[in-house]
């Protein structure tokens, strides 16, 4: 189906279902319950999940396939955001031109940065990309303020021209990003017996784009181009003597992956029309690296999982403060309650970094292939129960004869 193999079709269908049903899946706890704190099904976070998913998918095309570790990918995301916000300021609040321009701008920068950086490989490449991104960040923060509005970030204002739209709405506020009138921030909340689910226009736009982006990525993975990118990672020398010039292909994938980043940046600005320089900082580039590795570099779905994992911690764990903890453990006797809270206190709220750091270490130590490997292990363990399975049978033949 869709020109994909059987396994890929399954993965793809799973991704579609997950993306479309996210409002349900991410809100498993009734609103009133104390566990509602763990619900992630509100528009902003769902949007972030899929946007960073797109970013990570694109990054993985470059890193997972060719092994070129770019440490400056956030620059493309940032440039995409700036491009999109400028589009909102100058043209109209429709997201389509903004997203298109963000991809084009990011792509153009990727051509230049990629062309230069790909002259080196390994760590030298990483540092070149890092240097470019840090330069962009530092300049955006200071000298380029007329374009980027510096530290504060580029925002839309009441007196932007917006030649195809209006500078201000009738009631004097700034117009809202939209898709031909459909407002991005519009959402409907459906309450079902204690649960409430948010269906947001913005989220579904992002989700559909993410599904498309995922589809394109799968096709690239399975194409001759994708295969030869893996060959680059494996043995460049052999590739050259096999009659293929690796350089244009790596540049191509660098640009594609830069455009994915630009797309993510454009979407981010479309959901929330602001673009700040921190988006280009090395920590942001590092974050997408971490997302990809955490989920499983070189796998199809890993980067999306990794993105979700990190964003979840950032947004959910950081909000658990002591009074929330007291709410959960109120049923315990006072002394015990305070004890439990004292134990948990360093790991939540302002300690969310600590938990995230520990999770990084635990995942990489125990699941060398990332979260995807965790999933595989679980499914393997489940399958092991069924003796008629092929995989298990063929493995048995490898066992010692006695």
């Amino acid at each position, binding site marked *: 189906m869709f*020109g*994909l*193999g059987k396994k890929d079709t399954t993965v793809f269908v799973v991704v579609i279902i997950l993306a479309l049903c996210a409002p349900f899946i991410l809100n498993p706890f009734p609103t009133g319950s104390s566990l509602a704190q763990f619900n992630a099904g509100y528009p902003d976070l769902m949007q972030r999940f899929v946007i960073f998913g797109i970013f990570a998918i694109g990054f993985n095309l470059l890193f997972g396939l060719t092994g070129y570790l770019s440490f400056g990918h956030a620059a493309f995301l940032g440039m995409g955001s700036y491009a999109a916000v400028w589009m909102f300021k100058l043209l109209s609040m429709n997201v389509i031109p903004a997203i298109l321009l963000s991809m084009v701008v990011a792509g153009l920068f990727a051509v230049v940065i990629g062309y230069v950086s790909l002259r080196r490989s390994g760590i030298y490449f990483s540092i070149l990309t890092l240097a470019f991104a840090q330069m962009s960040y530092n300049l955006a923060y200071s000298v380029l303020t007329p374009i980027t509005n510096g530290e504060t970030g580029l925002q839309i204002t009441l007196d932007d021209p917006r030649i195809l739209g209006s500078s201000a709405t009738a009631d004097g506020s700034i117009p809202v990003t939209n898709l031909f009138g459909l407002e991005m921030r519009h959402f409907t909340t459906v309450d079902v017996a204690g649960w409430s689910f948010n269906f947001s226009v913005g989220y579904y736009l992002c989700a559909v784009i993410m599904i498309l982006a995922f589809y394109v990525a799968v*096709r*690239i993975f*399975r*194409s*001759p*181009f*994708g*295969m*030869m990118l*893996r*060959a680059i*990672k*494996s*043995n460049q*020398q*052999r*590739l*050259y*003597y*096999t*009659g*293929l*010039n690796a350089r*244009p*292909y790596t540049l*191509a994938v660098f640009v594609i992956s830069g455009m994915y980043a630009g797309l993510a940046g454009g979407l981010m600005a479309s959901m929330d029309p602001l673009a700040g320089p921190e988006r280009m900082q090395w920590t942001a580039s590092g974050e997408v690296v971490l997302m990809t590795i955490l989920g499983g570099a070189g796998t199809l779905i890993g980067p999306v999982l990794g993105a979700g994992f990190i964003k979840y911690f950032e947004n959910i764990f950081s909000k658990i403060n002591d009074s929330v903890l007291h709410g959960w453990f109120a049923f315990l006797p006072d002394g015990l309650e305070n004890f439990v809270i004292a134990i948990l206190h360093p790991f939540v709220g302002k300690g969310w970094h600590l938990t995230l750091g520990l999770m990084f270490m635990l995942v990489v130590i125990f699941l060398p292939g990332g979260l995807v490997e965790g999933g595989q292990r679980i499914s393997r363990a489940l399958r092991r129960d069924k003796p008629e399975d092929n995989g298990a049978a063929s493995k048995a033949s490898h066992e010692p004869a006695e």
Partner: protein
Amino acid sequence: MGILEVKDVNKRFGGLKALSEVNLSVTENTVHAIIGPNGAGKSTLLNCLVGKLIPDTGSVMFDGQSVLGRKPFEINQMGISRVFQTPEIFGDLTVMENMMIPLFARRDGAYRLHAFRSVESEAELRSRAEAMLEDVKMLDKRNMHSASMSRGDKRRLEMAMCLVQEPRLLLLDEPTAGMARADTNNTIDLLKEIKEKRDITMAIIEHDMHVVFSLADRITVLAQGTPLVEDSPENIKGHPKVREAYLGEAA
């Protein structure tokens, strides 16, 4: 005029003269063996042919065109494939994928690989790859991760990757080193068969005289960077200088 003409090639590594005044002419559709003691410069010479090294002076012409100054992949696209002395394969890929890459390179050229069509759908190329694997008796290993094969298998895979490109000139640097005797014999047969079936020229470096004498039409003996003699196999076998400096008891 041979298909490959090497004229007055010199190559130095620092103080060491690895090649000096090498002249070599390989006639089309023949097997030309290059033998000589270790460190004689055989691999260096091959490196000069495929663009891995650039000679200090001299010229290398393939089919009337100079290969000097061209990139390795351009030289390959001209029709020269090479098997290395230590196996060079795509270790992270399966055997079948290793075979597909040279096929794509041959069909689509250096720059035009598809980014959207699935590899699975290339039935024709797949069947050619499978046929080639069958020829080197590796079809049963087609889905194996190529890094986890034994060394002899890696060599056979590399040779299959070169052969499947149907090059006009095939350069083999000790193709049978480390191969089991049975496979060595197989390889000899395979190379012979290919030579008969197709227009192919081969230059082969080998220390296994059995292979050399079974395949070669002409032999050049290289010693200390210069060609010592070039002659037919029979004459080389009897050449006293060669026997003493190189062949030893094997002759």
